[in-house]
């Protein structure tokens, strides 16, 4: 009896964190391991959202619409100021330069293509993640800190289904749709710049613009913004749901959400542009 008790600690069954795999994981330094863990958590969260939407695609659309409207009403003004200010300034600077080179009639068409592919999408994503994404992280993180999410779980309500899915859908839709007014502002800003500095008539500008623009490019912009919306939403929801650690925790969660969004966005845009232009090089050209 007593001998059994003495031997018991040495002969216990292997626990969940023993074995080769966990030991290898334990050897990996803290930095890379936490990065992999965070990315894995984000992918798992995204999978959960998608599964929840696909399995029962009803019951959240009205709430998504409400949330979309709320987000738009609260952040429309700052987003418009940030996006349109940036695009106007960018258009003016580049048009001034091209008009000095005497290539305004040729240049604006390229500028529009280059501008919207690289920078309209970019600034839209940056501003959405800084304004609406940070607000989303604050919202979810505040609920986490006040232990509302735990209370929901105890009551048998899935926080992902009830809170995250409507917000995710509305933010993805917002990111995708806001690129269209962004494109319009890019066009108008370039036209104003070309008319004012390069003395190019509006008819010539829009003729060269529409003769070089093709539907696949617009679809590509929408697809790109949709993907960026998924990226921003997943990062912000993950950081909000995993906020914690006292009063500095929520601020730090928002900080990390925005920084991770920016890093992911920059790298994603580089990869997307390289792959898209590599696959369809004729779309990058002027016809």
């Amino acid at each position, binding site marked *: 009896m007593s001998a059994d008790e003495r031997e018991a600690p040495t002969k216990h069954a292997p626990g969940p964190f023993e074995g080769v795999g966990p030991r290898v994981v334990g050897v990996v330094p803290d930095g890379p391991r936490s990065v992999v863990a965070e990315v894995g958590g984000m992918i798992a969260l995204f999978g959960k959202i998608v599964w929840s939407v696909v399995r029962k695609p009803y019951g959240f659309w009205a709430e998504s619409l*409400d*949330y979309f409207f*709320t987000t738009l009403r*609260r*952040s429309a*003004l*700052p987003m418009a*100021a*940030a996006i349109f*200010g*940036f695009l106007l*300034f*960018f258009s*003016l*600077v580049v048009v*001034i*330069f091209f*008009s*000095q*080179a*005497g290539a305004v009639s*040729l240049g604006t068409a*390229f500028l529009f293509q*280059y501008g919207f592919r*690289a*920078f309209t999408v970019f600034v839209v994503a*940056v501003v959405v993640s*800084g*304004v609406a994404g*940070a*607000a989303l*992280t*604050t*919202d979810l993180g*505040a609920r986490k*800190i*006040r232990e509302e999410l735990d209370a929901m779980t105890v009551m048998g309500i899935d926080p992902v289904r009830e809170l995250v899915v409507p917000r995710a859908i509305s933010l993805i839709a917002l990111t995708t749709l806001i690129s269209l007014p962004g494109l319009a502002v890019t066009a108008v800003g370039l036209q104003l710049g070309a008319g004012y500095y390069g003395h190019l008539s509006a008819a010539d500008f829009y003729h060269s613009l529409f003769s070089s623009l093709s539907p696949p490019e617009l679809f590509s912009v929408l697809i790109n913004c949709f993907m960026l919306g998924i990226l921003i939403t997943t990062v912000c929801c993950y950081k909000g749901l995993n*906020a914690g650690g*006292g*009063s*500095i*925790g*929520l*601020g*730090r*969660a*928002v*900080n990390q959400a*925005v*920084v991770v969004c*920016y*890093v992911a966005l*920059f*790298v994603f845009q*580089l990869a997307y*542009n390289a792959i898209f*232009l590599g696959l369809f090089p004729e779309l*990058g*050209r*002027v016809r």
Partner: protein
Amino acid sequence: MSQDASQRTGSDDESQEESAPTTRESVESIRRSMEQAVENAAELVRFGGRSIAQIPKTFRLYPSEVFQQAGVLIRGSGPVIIALIAVLAVQSAVGGHYIFDTPGLNSYAGAIYSVALMRGLVQVVFGWIVAAKIGCGIVAELGSMKISEEIDALEVMGINPMQYLASTRVAAGVIVVPFLFATGLFVEFTAGFVGSVYAMQTVSEGGFFTYLYLFQNFADFGIALLWAFCTGVMCIIVATYYGSTASGGPVGVGQATAKSMVVNLVLISTLAVVFAQVFYGGNANAPIGN
């Protein structure tokens, strides 16, 4: 814009429950929120002016704290900023290749980096990353100090929190931002060189550097540095303001962080329009046609 920001993350439940307001009530609420926005802006400007005015005193009283903050900025935020600027340059190399290749402007690829990027894009992107990485970090730190009444404790001990917390960070920003930006420009040119010459093979080495340096002179560099300096220091001032006025528990800290991000993004764009118009509006400063 800030009345939007101040109510943005608040309570969506209350606003849906209340009955539809009459016209007079809604006009009244708009008027009140606009007054609040003007008041907030005035507070922000006053706070920024005071924290700048205290910088000499801060240097005399807390030099070690200033340099410690500068070290935190360099080690914590420098690599992220510079890496993202490098990614921006490589992305411009990819996009620029397809744009410049068709009309046979290949040899002008170097001008992407000295015209399109250096005259505003790098500064704006620099501002975004400073606002996100440095600014939000400062708001989270100062806000949690404010919430846990550490700032009041400093005041009781006879230390001016404005000097010790806000001005030290602004002074650190004043020291660090120009060097960080100059390093970022160097990295931008180098990454653009690698991207355009080796990765995309748009232009030869000599052609790249010819047009890179043909389209910029010392005035451009000075303008870029001034622009980035104003953007970066402004982001830090906005962040210290929102950090030291946070209230309402942990949730308040998160809301202040999000709010500072909104205000910074808008101000960066506004500043970009102003700088572009002032410095490049009438004079393209290019070696063509003048």
